[in-house]
Every structure is written in structure tokens, then in C-alpha cells.
């Protein structure tokens, strides 16, 4: 069998779960632990925690979130954001992460991929690639949530990441991220065809059909989704906005998330199976 994975992504800022558009303009949605527990019960195949601010000061709160989460959640957990060295990786694994996700540090020093995969095993090292489509049609890799230009061609970079021994690639279309317009199928299938490791597509899911379109091609191994699931959770559970710090206006106003058709993980998986896409249910 060749089953795909559905991976909710939890962007973390300090103690909060946040969500942005094009990886920016972060809005506070709630407590990460509440979302994580719900997704586990709903049949998430893995969880991805991404520290989107990743300042040294806030690192401890991410560690606390991870070590609390893994006590009750028995599925794989990947942690990313601001990991710069073998030491940082070791620390995150020590508090309970199963895999780590690198971006900036790997682009700055590709040998880190080689070193880390030899030390912790290829399958522990996930490389995030943030792609932006340039006006001339090229896709270039960015870092720091799509803010920092690197000039690196994403397709060449993906092949290099594979050769250096990474276990997986998460490819984010920054252009699509948070927009609900659907995945960038051209981008993700091209990356997937170029490498021999599993590829996780991220950015753009606005309704169940988008995941079906992505996965029925059969090249991508997983779909990483946040808004669709987060907004469903918020609709179902009164998130305690008053306890939260940061940009909570969005949450208090309960604005209609009109571009999205929020859904449960279970319902998405049912739809996938109806479309002959194999997954755990």
C-alpha cells in the first residue's frame, strides 16, 4: 500500500497558535495544546509545529509546548523554526520531537543537512523550502517565512537536499499560503518528480477538493494543512480569546472565514478515500 499522510500544521508564536497569510500578518487563534489534542483524536497522521518567530527568548515556550504535547499524543511530531545547529536539533529531539525541520540554517550551510542526517538518521531531518514564483516564472527559495531573498533556485535546491541525505521535503508555496486558492500543483509535482524522498505539499488548501486535486496525482506523499482545520476547530470550540495575548481582534470578531470551507480531518480523509486515495482512517 502507498498511503498518503494528512498533516495539520501548527504555527506557534510564543504561547499561542497563530495563522497568517503568505506566512505573514499573524493572527492569534488559540492554545496549541487544544488544537494538537483535537487533531490527534481526529486522526491526524502527524503534527508539524513551526515556531514562526523563533527568537531565543521564546524558544523555551516552544519546548514546553512540545514536551507537554508528547505526553498524551502518540503520533509523530515534527518541530521547526529557528533551528541553527546540531545542538538546537538535539535539544528539540530531547524534549520529545521525532523529526526536525530546517530551512534558513540549511540554505546558509548545506553541510548541516549531511551532518545532521548522519548523526540523527535521514528520516529525522526534514527540509522546508519556501518557494516564491518570480515575475519571470522562476521559483526561488526564500527563508524567514518568505521574507529573505536567497536567489537559490528551488528545483536545484530540492535535488541538492535529497543528495545531502535529508529524509523529506516540505515545499511551501508562499504565494498560495493562507489564501485558500489551492495548492501550487505545478511547483509541488515538479519538485516531487525530481527527488527520490517523500515530498509534503504545503500552502493553499481552501477546501477538501484542493487536497484531492493534489493527492490524486500520486506524486506527493502528504498534504500539510492549517487554515482548513484551524477554522473548523474554532467554529466547533469556543476558543478562549480573552486568555490570549497578541492580535486577537480577528478571533473576537468571529469574522467569517469566507474564502475557506473549513472541515474536519475525518471528513477530508473520507473524501480522499472516495477518490481512491489511500490513507489511514
Amino acid at each position, binding site marked *: 500500500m502507498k498511503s498518503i499522510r494528512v498533516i495539520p500544521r501548527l504555527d506557534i508564536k510564543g504561547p499561542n497558535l497563530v495563522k497568517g497569510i503568505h506566512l505573514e500578518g499573524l493572527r492569534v487563534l488559540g492554545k496549541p495544546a487544544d488544537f494538537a489534542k483535537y487533531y490527534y483524536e481526529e486522526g491526524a497522521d502527524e503534527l508539524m509545529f513551526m515556531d514562526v518567530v523563533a527568537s531565543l527568548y521564546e524558544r523555551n515556550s516552544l519546548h514546553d509546548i512540545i514536551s507537554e504535547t508528547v505526553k498524551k499524543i*502518540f503520533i509523530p511530531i515534527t518541530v521547526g523554526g529557528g533551528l541553527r545547529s546540531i545542538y538546537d536539533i538535539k535539544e528539540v529531539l530531547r*524534549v520529545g520531537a521525532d523529526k526536525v525541520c530546517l530551512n534558513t540554517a540549511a540554505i546558509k550551510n548545506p553541510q548541516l543537512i549531511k551532518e545532521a542526517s548522519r548523526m540523527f538518521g535521514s528520516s529525522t531531518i526534514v527540509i522546508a523550502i519556501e518557494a516564491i514564483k518570480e515575475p519571470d516564472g522562476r521559483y526561488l527559495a526564500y527563508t524567514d517565512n518568505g521574507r529573505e531573498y536567497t536567489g537559490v533556485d528551488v528545483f536545484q535546491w530540492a535535488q541538492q537536499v535529497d543528495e545531502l541525505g535529508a529524509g523529506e521535503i516540505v515545499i511551501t508555496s508562499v504565494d498560495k499560503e493562507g489564501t485558500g486558492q489551492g495548492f501550487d500543483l505545478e511547483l509541488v509535482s515538479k519538485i516531487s518528480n525530481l527527488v527520490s*524522498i*517523500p515530498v509534503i505539499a504545503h500552502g493553499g488548501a481552501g477546501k477538501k477538493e484542493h487536497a484531492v486535486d493534489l493527492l490524486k496525482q500520486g506524486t506527493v*506523499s502528504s498534504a500539510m494543512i492549517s487554515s482548513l482545520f484551524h477554522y473548523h476547530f474554532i467554529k466547533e470550540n469556543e476558543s478562549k480569546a480573552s486568555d490570549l495575548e497578541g492580535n486577537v481582534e480577528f478571533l473576537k470578531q468571529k469574522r467569517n472565514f469566507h474564502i475557506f470551507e473549513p472541515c474536519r480531518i475525518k471528513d477530508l480523509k473520507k473524501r480522499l478515500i472516495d477518490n481512491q486515495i489511500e490513507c489511514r482512517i
Partner: protein
Amino acid sequence: MDGIKKKVVIIDYQLGNLFSVLQACDTVGMNAKISSEKEDILNADALILPGVGAFIEAMNNLKKLQLDVAIKQKVNNGAPIFGICLGQQLLFTESEEFGAGNGLDLISGVIKRFPEKFEERKIRVPHIAWNTIYKSIQNWESTALNELANDDFMYFIHSYYVKPENDSCILTLTNYDSIEYCSAIKLKNIFATQFHPEKSAEKGITIYKNWAKIHNLI
């Protein structure tokens, strides 16, 4: 009764995340601790050999810490051992990977890597997925897989798999993209899985619970 609970040692050879293995043990009520001390292994009632990472690195670490001899001695004397992922592979004779060398040789067989291609199709490696386990020759009753159903999903993350010399120790098979391989074994006091039960949600935790019950560890 806590005072006389049997001691389970999760063998730490300094690779990978043992935290979730310990959490799974705690959840089902085992008296487990993580250790890389030879003495702890020799004094344990049961062993768990987890592991993520490279075979060669793992064997080197086990030897450096003198744990290889201790593990073999315990298992040959009948102590139950539960190998997980790389921990399962280490129980076998040798790896086919160039230069990787010998394992603990508690079970005869070799470690193989998934091919890059199968019938002209690209095989993505590592195999990272929830995949199903199904019965082979052995029955699951009275093993740690009791209560599980054929085709239950478990979490896999690996590039290599075991090929036992004698099929009779095969407990489960798994099929990844048309390649069928052994995904769990049971031979006397040895039980081992290629998948990660501690990452396989409730059904995985059931495996921990069953294993602990069979060996009177809870």
C-alpha cells in the same frame, strides 16, 4: 504493588528520541527507565531496544558502551526484549549496507535497503507512512498483537527492512508500493517491530500494554 514491579530498561545508545517510548511505557503502567549503563541492563527484568538512525553508528555505540554483550547475555538467558525500528534490525546477523557490518545476531537474517526502482517505478525512500500490517505464518493470539486486526495501520519511518533466514519468526508483513517485507517478528522471548507502536496512536499503545501483560511487567 508498585514496589515490586518488574524493571524495564529502555536501552539508550545515544541515537534518537526515547522520550515517546518512555511515555508509552508510563501510559500502560510499566516501571521503565532509560539507561545506557551495562549494570542496569544486566539487572533489568525486560529490555526495550528502540532506535532511529544508522545501523553502523548504533552498533558502534552499543559496543563502545559494552551494551552489546550485556544485551546478548540477557536475551540468551530468557529476558524478554522488545525491539523497535532500528532496534529490530540490530537483533539480526548483519546489514547488507556497505561497511555496516554485524548486528547482535540474536536472529539469523540480513538487513536490506528498499530498491530505488521496482518494475520501472521510482520507490520513494525512506518509507514514511502509516501502512497496514497483516498476518503471515504466526498467529497473533498470545503475542503483543493480540486484539489487533489484520490490516490495522501502524506508523513506519525507515529505509531498511529485515529479511529473516527462517520465515517462521515472521509475525507481520507489510506491503510498500508492491514490495512485501517482514514488519514484525516473534521468536521465543524476542518481539520486534519495524513500525513505531509508540507513534501509532491507541493501537500502538495496545501493543505496549499487551507486551507488558504477557511478561507480567504490569
